[in-house]
């Protein structure tokens, strides 16, 4: 993934860059909005992390300029300004998410992953979550099977998972929401067609079946008490 980091503070930039590099992002760093626009005109980026307080043109103006020039990559605003008005303005002017710094790296990575998944869902038919891939065009779900111990250099294999139509509906909805939890009510609404009503109990049955199919591969369908379900990755696998 190619990531554009626009940040004028050297310490923050180097820290974030280091953390993102380790997480597998190819980071291009711009210390000003002008430099960022220059970079964007030459290359394509999958995602951008933009600070608001920049010398010269500020982050808000940069975001606006990027959107006006037709760039559709997700933009995460990373700013020390935490007032509600700043957030609202940032999101209104084209930011896709807003994170206040200082922030924890895992949180930044999770937000970036969510943004990327959403943007990919808009452009490609394949949804990804950890070892899980769901091709919405072919209606095929697959998981990456970890190489068995002692198999040496053997390539991990993709394993098809058969899903019934309802099971597919539940899983696709959970995947689109992840890492946010999906509320049971919304899940019911999403699954209930004009022809058929689905009961809350039925949902539990589907969830239980999906658990049997995916949990061996480290994909958990966690119950959130009083709310709904959430896709999580099993840290142990």
């Amino acid at each position, binding site marked *: 993934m190619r990531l554009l980091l626009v940040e004028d503070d050297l310490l923050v930039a180097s820290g974030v860059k280091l953390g993102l590099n380790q997480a597998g992002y190819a980071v291009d760093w711009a210390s000003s909005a002008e430099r960022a626009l220059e970079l964007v005109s030459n290359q394509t980026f999958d995602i951008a992390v933009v600070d608001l307080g920049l010398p010269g043109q500020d982050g808000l103006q940069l975001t606006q300029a990027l959107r006006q020039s037709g760039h559709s990559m997700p933009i995460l605003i990373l700013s020390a300004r*935490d007032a509600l008005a700043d957030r609202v303005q940032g999101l209104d002017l084209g930011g896709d998410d807003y994170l206040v*710094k*200082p922030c*924890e*790296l895992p949180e930044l990575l999770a937000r970036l992953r969510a943004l990327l998944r959403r943007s990919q869902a808009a452009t490609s038919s394949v949804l990804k979550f950890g070892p899980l891939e769901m091709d919405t065009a072919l209606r095929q779900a697959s998981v990456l099977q970890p190489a068995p111990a002692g198999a040496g250099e053997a390539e991990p294999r993709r394993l098809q998972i058969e899903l019934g139509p309802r099971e597919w509906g539940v899983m696709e909805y959970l995947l689109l929401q992840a*890492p946010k939890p999906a509320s049971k009510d919304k899940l019911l609404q999403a699954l209930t067609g004009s022809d058929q009503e689905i009961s809350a109990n039925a949902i539990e049955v589907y969830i239980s079946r999906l658990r049997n199919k995916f949990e061996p591969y480290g994909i958990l369908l966690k119950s959130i008490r009083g709310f709904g379900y959430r896709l999580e990755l099993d840290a142990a696998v």
Partner: protein
Amino acid sequence: MKNWLNLVGSGALQRRLLQLLLLPLLLVALLNTWFDYRLADSAAIQQDRQLLTLVPALADAVRSDQADGTLTLSLSPELAEFLSSRAGAADYAILNADGRVLAGAEWLRDYPPDTHEPEFSSQELRGAVYRIVTQRVSTRAGELTVRLADGVSLRWQRLRRLWLNVLLPNLFLTLLAFAAVQWAVRQALQPLLKLKDEVDGRSPRDLSPLDEASSLEEVRPLVRALNHLFELVNAQAAAQARFVADAAHQLRTPLAGLQALVEALTQNRPSGVADEPIMRLRDATRRTSQLVQQLLTLSRVEAPGGLVRPGQRADLRQLCEQVLEEHLDRASLRRIDLGLDARSVWCEGEAWLLHELLSNLTDNALKYTPEGGRVTLRCGLCEPDGTDAFLEVEDDGPGIDPELWPRLLQRFYRGNTANAAGAVGMAGMAGVAGMAGAAAVEGNGLGLAIADEIARAHHSQLQIGRGRGRDRDRDRDDGGQGGQGRRGLCVSLRLRAVRELTDETPISP
């Protein structure tokens, strides 16, 4: 400022006014009585004088009778007129040296006086008081004693009149004045009392000026002085809040850099190797960042002028869901069952502030609940048809001694949880060694204080209690453990519900 208001309230001013007014009133009544008494006295003297002038006439009236020693009287017209004017209420007697009545009324029998000077006395007879003059005089029948009694006792009448006409009215007037003063003082103090109520009824954060135009002219200088004081306090509070905000903001950027680097370094460590110093550095940095963030929030909540704009509404259920979402990762990292028990309810309040409040409470609950525990966010109406909504966070962690509850809301106080070792150690660096196994509790002791400030800004306050264990299955769980180890903590607050709003009414905050 409160002292003088209290004085008004307790009626000291009223008492003083009464004392000051009653003293002169009583003095006037006394003077009045004294003058009247003097008047009565002089009337009595006049009566005595009249009696005395009649004594020679009575003496002259005595005619001696040589035969048997009896007396005959020939009353002078002057005397006759006196007796007839008193219409039987006057008597006379002529006594000999033994005190026997030679002529006149038998009841006036008495021993003669020792001297020739006239003597005056009062005597009661058949309900009337007689003023009597007695004098030894020489008459045609030799030396006799004459006594003249006037039944119309002016002195007595005067004294009675004094009581009825002077003392009673004076007393009555005094009582009346007493009541009048009470009433008048209360009326006169009404504006002050109103002002007192207005100041009393305010929240400590509300330092907006009092309405000067609507207050009475007499009170206006006081209102002006109070407003001036409010202004000064406001300015000071604002300056302080600004300083904290500026300082926190300035700290933020370098901290962000520091944290970004440390976080990256933490990630970079060889897998499987616990790099203690780096992890500790990261935790300290995270905690410092949180502290700076909390200081900023606190300075905003405290900023005078009130952050809670009237008419704002918040969807508590949505708030609970949002906060749940934000804390799920942390909860699942510590294997804590973070759940909801949320009814659809709207309340009056500032959504972002309530979010901050709930977030702080949840944060706290997650920090102090051991792995495998349970934290529940709740909201709903207090009663089915109540006007209050509630918002609460309950955990089933070790809980906190009730004696310590009040201190929980103090700034920078960090609770000694019941599983003491870990939490106590965290307070000082000395305890670092001891924290390896225990849950690393990072906290600044500001979360609850901020939550309480926000609650107060909403005219409410945080209620701390034991975990109630509303869930049935939880009760069952507890039954097995005897409820000993898992008391839990429940922090809640009441907010004014907006009844007419339900889920179906889409109002985005």
